[in-house]
């Protein structure tokens, strides 16, 4: 087990290094274009060369890569072109905001989708199952931009219950968080619920569930003790993958509600060719992706004794 975790973590670092090399080659390989992005298209040749000289761009490529990587590891991301402040000053608060949004979405979505999925999968083909399945397909197939418009029309303009933007201009406001969370939950719960349902329905046909029933156990015990543990293995992996999506897949929602999160930052950085910000965002996104995968792998092993003790 210990060796397994070490291996996974080592693998995670290797992935990060490979991605960083790719990123470096992609964005920093030609110093001329970097200088153009930083100094603008109207800078003179002389200015650019001066800037490049100052920032060590005439060193050999591996020296440049290593110092670039070193800066990354120590958290010194140089300066954002767009915001004119060090990248870390914009990056961390934005990441924090997205984390708040993500945690709120998870807090609603995970219990909701697991309960619905289990209820549906428990009795495959029942009325309850069909209702839940159809609902989750419908909600999943409505894209965020459509449901965001619809929910805004309903709660902001018609009922006037909720604010239409979530800029958090006067500090943190729970009311402003409601609509983005609602849109994201509505879009995502159906997917997780359907995964859970499929897994649960499969477990319910297993001979060991039959054994449990014919042992004379009460039905709730059959479900809670015998079915759930096995049925939750698949949804767990799926849920871990959703963290990824919540980080960079929520651009539309963040932009729509003017929520100052990571997704919106990424969009702004790309639109403005803010090269150092893009690099920082990309590395954060890769780190989260790889880390959640690693946690998913380790958690999967923990949930499944057949892998744990083999």
């Amino acid at each position, binding site marked *: 087990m210990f060796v397994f975790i070490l291996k996974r973590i080592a693998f995670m670092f290797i992935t990060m290094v490979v991605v960083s090399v790719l990123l470096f080659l992609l964005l920093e390989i030609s110093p001329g274009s970097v200088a153009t992005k930083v100094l603008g298209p109207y800078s003179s040749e002389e200015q650019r060369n001066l800037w490049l000289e100052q920032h060590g761009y005439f060193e050999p490529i591996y020296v440049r890569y290593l110092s670039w990587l070193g800066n990354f590891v120590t958290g010194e991301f140089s300066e954002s072109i767009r915001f004119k402040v060090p990248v870390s000053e914009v990056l961390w608060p934005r990441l924090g905001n997205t984390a708040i949004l993500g945690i709120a979405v998870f807090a609603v979505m995970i219990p909701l989708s697991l309960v619905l999925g289990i209820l549906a999968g428990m009795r495959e083909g029942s009325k309850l199952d069909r209702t839940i399945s159809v609902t989750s397909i419908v909600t999943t197939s409505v894209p965020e931009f459509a449901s965001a418009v619809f929910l805004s029309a309903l709660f902001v303009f018609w009922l006037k219950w909720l604010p239409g933007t979530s800029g958090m201009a006067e500090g943190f406001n729970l009311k402003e968080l409601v609509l983005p969370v609602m849109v994201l939950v509505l879009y995502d719960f159906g997917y997780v619920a359907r995964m859970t349902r499929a897994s649960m329905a499969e477990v319910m046909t297993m001979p*060991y569930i039959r054994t449990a029933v*014919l*042992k004379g156990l009460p039905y709730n015990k059959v479900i809670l003790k015998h079915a759930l543990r096995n049925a939750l293995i698949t949804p767990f992996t799926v849920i871990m993958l959703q963290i990824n999506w919540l980080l960079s897949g929520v651009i539309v929602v963040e932009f729509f509600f003017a929520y100052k999160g990571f997704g919106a930052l990424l969009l702004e950085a790309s639109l403005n060719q803010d090269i150092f910000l893009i690099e920082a965002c990309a590395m954060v996104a890769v780190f989260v992706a790889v880390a959640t995968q690693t946690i998913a792998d380790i958690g999967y092993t923990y949930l499944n004794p057949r892998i744990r003790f083999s």
Partner: protein
Amino acid sequence: MTARGDTPILEIEDLNISYYTRAGEIPAVIDFTLTVDRSETVGLVGESGCGKSTVAWAIMQFMGNNGAIKSGSIKFIGHELNDLSDEALRQLRGSEISMIYQEPFAALNPSLTIASQLMEVPITHEQVSKKEAWERCAQMLSDVHLPDPQRIMHAYPHQLSGGQQQRVVISMALLSNPSLLLLDEPTTALDVTVEAGIVKLIADISKKFGTSQIYISHNLGLISEVCERVYVMYSGEVVEQGSINSVFTRPKHPYTQGLFGCIPLPPTDKNAAPLRPIKGQLPLPHKRPRGCNFGPRCDHFEAGRCDARNVTMVPVAGSDVVDHRVRCLRWNEIDGRGPPAQAKAKPPIELGERVLEVKHMQKYYEVHDRTIAAFISGQSIRFVKANEALDFDARRGETVAIVGESGCGKSTFAKVLMGLECSSAGELRHEGLEIGNTLVNRRSSQQQNALQMVFQNPNDTLNPSHTVGAQIARVIEKFGIEKDKNKIRERVLNLLDDVKLPRDFYFCRPRQLSGGQKQRVGIARAFAGNPSLVIADEPVSSLDVSVAAAVTELLMEIQREHQTTLLFISHDLSVVRYLADRIVVMYLGQIMERGTTEEIFAPPYHPYTEALLSAVPIADPDIEKREIVLEGDLPSALDPPMGCPFVTRCPRKLGEICEQERPLMQSLSREHAIACHIPIEELQHIEPVISVSPASERLRAK
């Protein structure tokens, strides 16, 4: 619910069960009547699809979504089960009526420890404390002869062997001391020697507690050894019932008689007295014929009488045994006349030159141990000795059987022979050419063609998206036997004739075929290029009794026609005795004994052969068998004993020499050799395991 006086434990009357599918209502069990008395063991026997498991589910009232009990009554000690509330039923299940399942591995929850799965039985039904539950479960585990119960309590199912898992399932069923035990093929998934131990355990324990049992099995031999009365089922109906002695020595129903003609009992022999397969196939449940269900397959069928109306059960008059009943109109007329179409004796095949030579062949697998402990001790690579010094040969037209339980290395040998793996050392020659180190893709197409295989599971070996004809034709084309399209087609059709399949099957896809038909296609495919050596790896073990008989006969017939050498891999000694000329007995990768069939089946035996012979159930009450039950499980191939591989389970162990030194082959005749430390003279004095009593009626009939 306590038992009173002489009320039978279970009374089933006129039970009708149907499944409701898209195709409409399908009757699964029709007019089923059965009684089980206190501490009686009743057998339910029949082929797959006859409805025997459905009866068990009905007793448990566990019919699934699409099954329903249409009419009839099931009374458990006088209480009607069909009317019980869910709660009353729950209290009954697992405490008064328990069940033991076919596949112990699937029946146990993979993510819960054995302790938590066992303890919930007394905790649910008797509300005992956790501590008491633990003690009772540990006690029960030691009652079912599991070593080290405390360790097993903490284990997960996958950490136990198949035999141990089944013992856990048995202890789970017995924890609440039930009045009735349902056993649904409890040993089908286990090895023969392990099976023998489980069967004995169930018998001992139920005798001790006075438990009544219903034993469901397709294995006539097993039923005859463990039950007192038997119900033979065919296509949803009981066709014959009575005491084991009466039904097994004087079967009245043509189907029961047919079944006995299909199993290789000791007097049958592939040349002198071949098997007599039942013609035709089991009718589909919604296409049952009018009148007698067995009519279309029966040799005694009389049009206008057997297909006029439904046949009812009638008592067999004049029989000295009470309660022998049969569902046949003509039982009186056909009785005693014996089977009409007695299969003809055939001359033995003449053996030709040596086709296969195996000399000191070895196959080791490397296993990489990646734990830290192994890394530190430097033992990160270990060897699984799958085959150790194999020595034997096979001649043209000969049938050589390799016998052994799972893990004995018989399948590894087949893999090396087929070229899927390379041997580690030694020689393997086929028609004089060394093939042990030549993988199949490096062999010439002639060589590939000359060595073909019939696989165990016909369902998995045919490509579901190609037609039967195309799959056979591809073999012929690939090996360059024929080039011309029409000629290839002609050849495929001839092959279909050879394996007795209708020519229309050329355009069928595998899903349209039954298991037996698929296996026939598998045989046609293997014999398509007229190979010199065919390996048959348990070719009939997944098939029903009557289908297996037909496929076995077919295989023998084609072999005879083509003078093919057949390497028959099996765990079933009765089939092997029937069809093999020579036998190689393997245990943990090594040959324990080899010789001609007569030599293997008569003393002197290797102690392992002796135990194997005793373990195979025989469906004949007239045959007497010495009981030898092996203790424990097969040792892991990763960590085999230093001396004789069989030493851990051997009932005739001499002492230290067996543990320390590997026994040498002691030759008795040109063919016969035994690897054992016990001197031959001593082995010669062992009594035969199987003896047929001279008064056997069936023997005289033959």
